[in-house]
């Protein structure tokens, strides 16, 4: 059906006691399955938005640093500093809002582009969560037809022990099986 990806040949090995590493490894594997088994293209829009907000915030902070260095404090730089500080923290607030409401744990957006270029793209979103010290990895796959479509979603809960062997190596085949199952569930589900 498809060529096996680099990750399939050589699955990553992580510290099996580190919940953060486990989640990242599972996220990477799900993304890898989505992109290599189907001819989807990854869309970076979500991550780009986050990068943009952070860059603006850091830009203001660098500006404040340079301005203070050129015009040392007590003079006119007071109002400039005030503006920079306020804008910076506003940007931090925007970033938090963005991460909480827009991103919602989505780590991969893949587009199923229509070959003829007529129909709008199908957008696949994969999001996940793994609570601290918990072993249940919640995976949510959603499909939306671009523009106005209502999203269809399928969820599953994976117990992390079943997807890593004793040395901490990722069991790529098991992950792939789950992802493909969710994917075909969504494809066949009517609205």
């Amino acid at each position, binding site marked *: 059906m498809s060529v096996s990806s680099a990750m399939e040949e050589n699955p990553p090995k992580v510290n099996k006691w580190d919940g*953060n590493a486990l989640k*990242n490894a599972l996220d990477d594997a799900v993304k890898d399955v989505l992109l290599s088994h189907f001819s989807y293209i990854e869309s*970076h829009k979500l*991550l*780009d938005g*986050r*990068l943009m907000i*952070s*860059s603006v*915030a*850091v830009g203001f*902070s*660098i500006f*404040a*640093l340079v301005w*203070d260095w050129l015009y*040392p*404090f*007590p003079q006119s730089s*007071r109002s400039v*500093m*005030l503006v*920079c*500080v306020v804008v*910076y*923290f506003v940007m*931090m607030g925007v970033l938090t809002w963005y991460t909480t409401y827009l991103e919602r744990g989505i780590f991969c957006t893949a587009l199923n582009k229509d070959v003829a270029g007529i129909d709008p793209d199908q957008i696949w979103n994969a999001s996940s969560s793994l609570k601290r010290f918990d072993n249940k990895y919640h995976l949510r796959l959603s499909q939306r037809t671009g523009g106005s479509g209502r999203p269809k979603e399928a969820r599953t809960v994976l117990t992390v022990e079943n997807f890593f062997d004793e040395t901490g190596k990722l069991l790529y085949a098991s992950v792939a099986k789950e992802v493909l199952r969710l994917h075909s569930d969504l494809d066949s589900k009517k609205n």
Partner: protein
Amino acid sequence: MNCRQIFYQFLNFAMIVSSALMIWKGLMVVTGSESPIVVVLSGSMEPAFHRGDLLFLTNYEQEPIRAGEIVVFKVEGRDIPIVHRVMKVHEKEDGAVKFLTKGDNNNVDDRGLYANGQAWLNRKDVVGRARGYVPFIGIVTIIMNDYPKFKYAVLAGLGVFVLIHRE
């Protein structure tokens, strides 16, 4: 990791540094002082302040300098600020003020510390008035300054950790 990921790690690091910087600048704006938090380096203000105490300063223009207050000031030509008590104040009607300081634990006033020929301090020499303090915490800063290698090691370690660690 692809280049977006790498850029994001750097941005993460930059955001942590920026947050610290912005909090400092915010404090500067709110207190009106160019150095709102200082560490006491000498024992010249004992028993009120000891070496390693952290001081919080404000520098509001409207508040007058009065005898008995503890001020942090900089002498022209030296960059280390000094924290001592105000002994004598001369004030003109237009608000121009000159004052003399002395450390509580010193035997003589600070005229020996001032610049050559200077007998009084002016308003512009003041970095701020001490408003509150936290004992002992500043010892960390003193250690970092006495052993700069330790400071660089800690900073480098933190930097590497933030750059490598994936959220």
